């Protein structure tokens, strides 16, 4: 219920009411909402997206604040092997005597770090390449799109495994490798939108006014595509969480001393029937992250695209 400024309009001279005056009257009394306000309102009213955002924030607190408060460190191997859940170790201990809850917190943290780095890098590279290809056309377009074809041909999981094995299994190496193979989708979407936006008058006007290519891309094109960019960046987080977990599950992703949800599942999945608490913890966290991020992405899509909105703003 926005700013209906009644006081100023009612004090306006009553003689002006009616005819042409009434329309000025109306425009004076209300302030139009900006595009950003509209998007924010639609998102805040998307119930599933709001619940998911809360879950996501809680998971972040669990991952990044949790280890500071919890008694055990994830590298602490002083406990006995395979203790069942108890007050001291709510999720028991692993084979080498690590506290599973501490491990789960750090694992969630590393998985989230990787996913967020992947999403940021992949989005940045994808938007840059896509906008360049779509705006400059010609040789740049052909070269960049052939590069996309090339990267789509080789199976991501194999090349990621080779690079990670060759460099090291630190979390940021895994993140950068996944980002290297994760930007193509966003680049294609950005290119498509740029192709149509670049034909519009305001871009032509900017160019006529002497704007440089970087200025046109970052000040004129990108703000107009911010909706689909945001949605795809969000979805990239979900994809990255699953990709990282899959790679680490094969033993070709994150290596000790770093850990991740995939590593924890890989170490403990043999115990699913005998010690189920070791398996279900990381499993539930992966599913929660991925579900929450997907729903946030859905909410953002509805918020940015009023045509398919399910909630009124």
């Amino acid at each position, binding site marked *: 219920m926005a700013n209906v400024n009644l006081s100023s309009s009612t004090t306006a001279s009553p003689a002006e009411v009616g005819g042409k005056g009434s329309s000025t009257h109306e425009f004076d009394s209300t302030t139009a909402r900006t595009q950003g306000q509209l998007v924010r309102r639609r998102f805040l009213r998307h119930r599933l997206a709001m619940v998911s955002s809360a879950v996501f924030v809680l998971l972040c607190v669990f991952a990044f604040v949790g280890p500071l408060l919890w008694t055990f460190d994830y590298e602490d191997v002083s406990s006995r092997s395979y203790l069942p859940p108890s007050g001291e170790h709510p999720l028991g201990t692993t084979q080498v005597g690590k506290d599973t809850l501490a491990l789960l917190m750090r694992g969630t943290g590393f998985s989230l770090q990787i996913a967020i780095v992947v999403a940021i890098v992949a989005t940045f590279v994808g938007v840059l390449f896509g906008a360049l290809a779509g705006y400059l056309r010609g040789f740049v377009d052909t070269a960049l799109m*052939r590069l996309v*074809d*090339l990267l*789509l*041909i*080789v*199976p*991501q*999981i*194999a*090349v990621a*495994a*080779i*690079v990670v*094995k*060759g*460099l090291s299994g630190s979390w940021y190496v895994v993140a950068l490798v996944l980002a290297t193979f994760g930007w193509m989708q966003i680049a294609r979407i950005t290119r498509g939108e740029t192709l149509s936006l670049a034909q519009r008058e305001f871009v032509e006007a900017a160019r006529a006014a002497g704007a440089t290519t970087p200025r046109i891309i970052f000040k004129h094109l990108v703000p107009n595509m911010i909706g689909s960019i945001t949605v795809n960046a969000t979805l990239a987080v*979900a994809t990255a969480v*699953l990709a990282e*977990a*899959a790679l680490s*599950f*094969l*033993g*070709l992703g994150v290596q000790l001393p770093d850990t991740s949800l*995939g590593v924890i*599942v890989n170490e403990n*999945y043999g115990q*699913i*029937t005998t010690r189920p608490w070791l*398996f279900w913890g990381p*499993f539930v966290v*992966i*599913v929660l992250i*991925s*579900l929450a991020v*997907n729903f946030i992405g859905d909410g953002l899509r509805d918020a940015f695209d009023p045509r398919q909105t399910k909630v009124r703003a």
Partner: protein
Amino acid sequence: MIRYIIRRLLISLPILLLGSFLSYVLVASAGNPLAEMRARPGVTEQQVQELAAELGLDKPVIARYWDWLTSFVQGDWGTSVALGQARAEVFPSVTEALWVTGRLVVGAELLALVLGVSVGVLAAVRQYSIFDYLATSTAFLMFSMPIFCVAVIIKSYGIEFNNVLQSMGVDRWLTTAGPPTEGFTGSIGDVIFKYTGTFLLPTLSLMLISFAAYSRFERASMLEIMHSDFVRTARAKGISNGRVVFRHAFRNALIPVATLFSLNFGAVLSGAIITERVFGWFGMGSLLVDSVRTFDPNMLMGWLAVTATLVVLFNLVADIVYGFLDPRIRLG
């Protein structure tokens, strides 16, 4: 049509060539397959050097790539760098692994496609019904599940099911660790029994993930078409509901799913790799993991070449199928 296919294949040749070169450089610079041998006790430096010379590892990368490429196109895919074991020929190893994985993937994908499309159509026709909500939430959940967790959970239920069978005095039915080595023999009933027991669990795990994507896609495209003008016209003409749904809407709604089906190949492959690891099959997944562990150049190159070629072929098939499903698209 044939001209179109030939042209497409010719266009992908340079991409494949460039891809193979980059892959070779990548594999070669990632690690040395003889590093592990050096670390072994009782191995002299001279032995390592001899082996390196024999395998051509002392030459520069470009020369090695050229050697590999020229023999590769002549059908000689080289041998693995197995240390202390008999060297495996790359070609039979890769094709065997592909056969194992292929059987799994084809079955699972076809089942997922049929089931996913049926569920998607039903959900769209009965929009906002209980069935629709159930299907949508299941698909959302499966979308967010890591495939290895699905496989591990299904495997554990399979083991429990077997235990129940055994406690009832019946033989174990479901295989949870690898396909039978001796093949399927016996009477027809026996073969079917063993075959389903072997394939059921891995196929189910692999299917569930793809199924989610197909049903979501089919539902979305079906809904869009059900609300389009030509469907309204068809209804206005008095055509029966079943005919409108199947003749007018369903056929058009298949187009995006067909694209997804053929472009999904990479995702399905990585899904299959993981499923295989969980169920102990020796297919493309095990081959990849083992070759990466030892930085085996020939084996990895053979693996990458086969999968990359398959991706190219699948993309081509996607476009051809597109032309059949949608007559507005003319190939040529």
